[in-house]
């Protein structure tokens, strides 16, 4: 019997394959009900976590290794899990007993007056989650059969990256949001994804077809559905081959105007199979992933090594790395304020960095050091007023000076701003930034007062409506007058329907997910700016 489930399209594409359900972290574990087997489960999770950490230590150096050694020391101390084992004897399930015990321990660190001890809470979170992952069987990514339709309630970015997607497949989430990081990763990898299916995971098994253009999951598709899929798949394969061929060619419009194509990435692993020649650089590195994946915050060395890998991949092309953009739809426990009534209008992006300067300074140091290995540029998110840029710049310059004084190789990379707050867009001429990049997703949401992940108003959040095109035109003129670079790095930049309008507004640099480069180049080649210029779709 064919069964259809409707969700929201999160990453385009179609796929056919066997459903494979992944259980998620907290709470998904089925407790055995017997104290002895719960205790055994915790013991083996502790021992597996300890083995993981020792493997990691073998591959780490310096501060990173020292941090991990501290974690191993805590883990191997029976005192740490003692309260958890007592709770298990009293009838608690292993995972909740462990969570509670760790929460107590973490609270002790977080309540400290000493900043150093408070910061160690991150190590305990990391330990907590590592053990929990073993308890809840999250360490099963390797077992996902290639080409499977992976079903989950939601999925952490690190788990998405742990799955082998080389033979295709698709991702279907019963919860999740199209703006989540995993949705971004799916778009980046070209993996079809549907979120918000609102169905019990247990119902999802057997052969299934995913039509992520329409946000549909069809379990046990009938012959007619299968035949339609085969036709769609054939058309998609042809379009895919055309796009793949276009991806390696330069981006030029029909009238001969060259367009710069940049990539949006979050993790150096996304670049592994990509030829840098498909792009003119990296227009956006989202650094939130580093902070999300592991609960604990990455130290300067870890960040430096990741930024350096991305800079080196680009072989001299510009690499724009955005400083931590936490908050809004990207909360980070322990960093972003809890309980804000409207996080999108609250302490997020640079606002958070300026009130949490330690995390910001660490990141700026890592960026200044990575800038010696390539053409790294630093982009500040959520800038609203010029004084915020000035504050960030003085912090950055102080860190560069401190690195120089310590004899550590570093470079004062250029400092630009993301234009995503209407105040910054409207008064862009007031900002002495070294470059601008339009964050069209947030800018559109703020200008239109409509969330694109809210189905009923998503149509209003159209990045090509006249209000947006006017702003883009103004930003093009402002950047031109100040002779600084301007690019656009929202989803519109890789959308073939939006591209002609963006180019007509004067934009000449677009940043997009790697999987969209071929299609975008085809859309650019089909655009004739001479004819578009005569039919401007907005009143001037």
């Amino acid at each position: 019997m064919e069964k259809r489930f409707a969700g929201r399209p999160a990453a385009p594409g179609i796929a056919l394959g066997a459903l494979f359900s992944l259980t998620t972290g907290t709470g998904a574990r089925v407790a055995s009900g017997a104290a002895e087997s719960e205790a055994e489960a915790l013991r083996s999770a502790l021992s597996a976590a300890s083995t993981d950490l020792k493997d990691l230590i073998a591959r780490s150096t310096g501060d990173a290794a020292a941090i991990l050694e501290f974690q191993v020391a805590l883990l191997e101390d029976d005192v740490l899990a003692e309260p958890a084992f007592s709770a298990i004897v009293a009838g608690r399930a292993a995972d909740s007993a462990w969570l509670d015990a760790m929460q107590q321990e973490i609270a002790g660190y977080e309540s400290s007056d000493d900043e150093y001890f408070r910061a160690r809470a991150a190590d305990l979170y990391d330990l907590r989650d590592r053990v929990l992952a073993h308890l809840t069987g999250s360490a099963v990514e390797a077992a996902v059969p290639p080409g499977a339709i992976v079903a989950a309630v939601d999925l952490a970015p690190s788990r998405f990256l742990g799955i082998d997607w080389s033979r295709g497949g698709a991702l279907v989430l019963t919860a999740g949001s199209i703006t989540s990081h995993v949705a971004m990763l799916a778009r980046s990898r070209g993996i079809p994804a549907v979120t918000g299916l609102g169905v019990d995971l247990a119902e999802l098994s057997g052969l299934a077809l995913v039509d992520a253009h329409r946000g549909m999951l069809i379990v046990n598709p009938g012959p007619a559905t299968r035949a339609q899929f085969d036709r769609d798949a054939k058309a998609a394969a042809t379009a895919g081959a055309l796009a793949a061929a276009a991806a390696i060619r330069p981006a030029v419009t029909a009238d001969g105007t060259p367009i710069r194509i940049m990539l949006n990435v979050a993790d150096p692993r996304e670049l592994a199979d990509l030829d840098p020649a498909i792009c003119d650089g990296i227009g956006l590195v989202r650094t939130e992933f580093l902070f999300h994946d592991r609960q604990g915050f990455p130290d300067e060395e870890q960040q430096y090594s990741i930024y350096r890998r991305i800079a080196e991949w680009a072989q001299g092309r510009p690499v724009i790395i955005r400083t931590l953009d936490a908050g809004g739809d990207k909360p980070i426990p322990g960093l972003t304020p809890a309980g804000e009534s409207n996080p999108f209008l609250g302490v997020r992006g640079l606002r958070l960095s300026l009130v949490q300067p330690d995390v910001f300074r660490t990141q700026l140091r890592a960026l200044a050091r990575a800038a010696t290995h390539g053409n790294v540029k630093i982009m500040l998110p959520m800038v609203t007023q010029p004084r915020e840029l000035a504050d960030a710049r003085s912090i950055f310059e102080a860190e560069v000076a401190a690195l120089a004084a310590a004899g550590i190789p570093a470079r004062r990379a250029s400092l630009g701003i993301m234009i995503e707050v209407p105040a910054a867009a409207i008064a862009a001429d007031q900002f002495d930034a070294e470059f601008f990049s339009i964050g069209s997703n947030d800018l559109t949401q703020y200008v239109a007062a409509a969330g694109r992940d809210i189905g009923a108003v998503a149509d209003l959040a159209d990045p090509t409506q006249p209000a947006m095109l006017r702003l883009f035109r103004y930003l093009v003129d402002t950047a031109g007058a100040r002779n600084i670079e301007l690019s656009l790095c929202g989803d519109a930049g890789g959308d073939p329907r939006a591209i002609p309008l963006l180019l007509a507004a004067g934009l000449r640099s677009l940043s997009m997910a790697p999987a969209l480069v071929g299609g975008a180049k085809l859309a650019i080649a089909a655009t004739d700016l001479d004819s578009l210029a005569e039919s401007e779709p907005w009143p001037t």
Partner: protein
Amino acid sequence: MSSFSPYDPVPKTNAVHTGSVLLTNNVGLHARPSVRLTQLAKSFGAHIEFALATTGPWVDAKSPVKVMRFKAAKGETLHFRASGADAAEALAAIVALVERGFASEAEEASQPPQG
């Protein structure tokens, strides 16, 4: 560097040795020093306890979880007491570790001579 093997017979002795030392390193008894301290303590067979006051509370100096819970800051005095066959030796080694700012002996040896 360990002089202790779990197979050594531990002679019965009730003698309790005590020692105390001022914590001088800048960030206090934090992660790496705690790991070094407890690793050193574990290399001895003696029962070793640690406290921030002679009146206690005393905790097992071989437990990094417990040592870290004290969140000892620079300027505090660390008190140790030990009993067992190698108690005196253990105390001397631990006090020396704290005195040299938790550097390992190898690190200490590689430092350029001071003033």
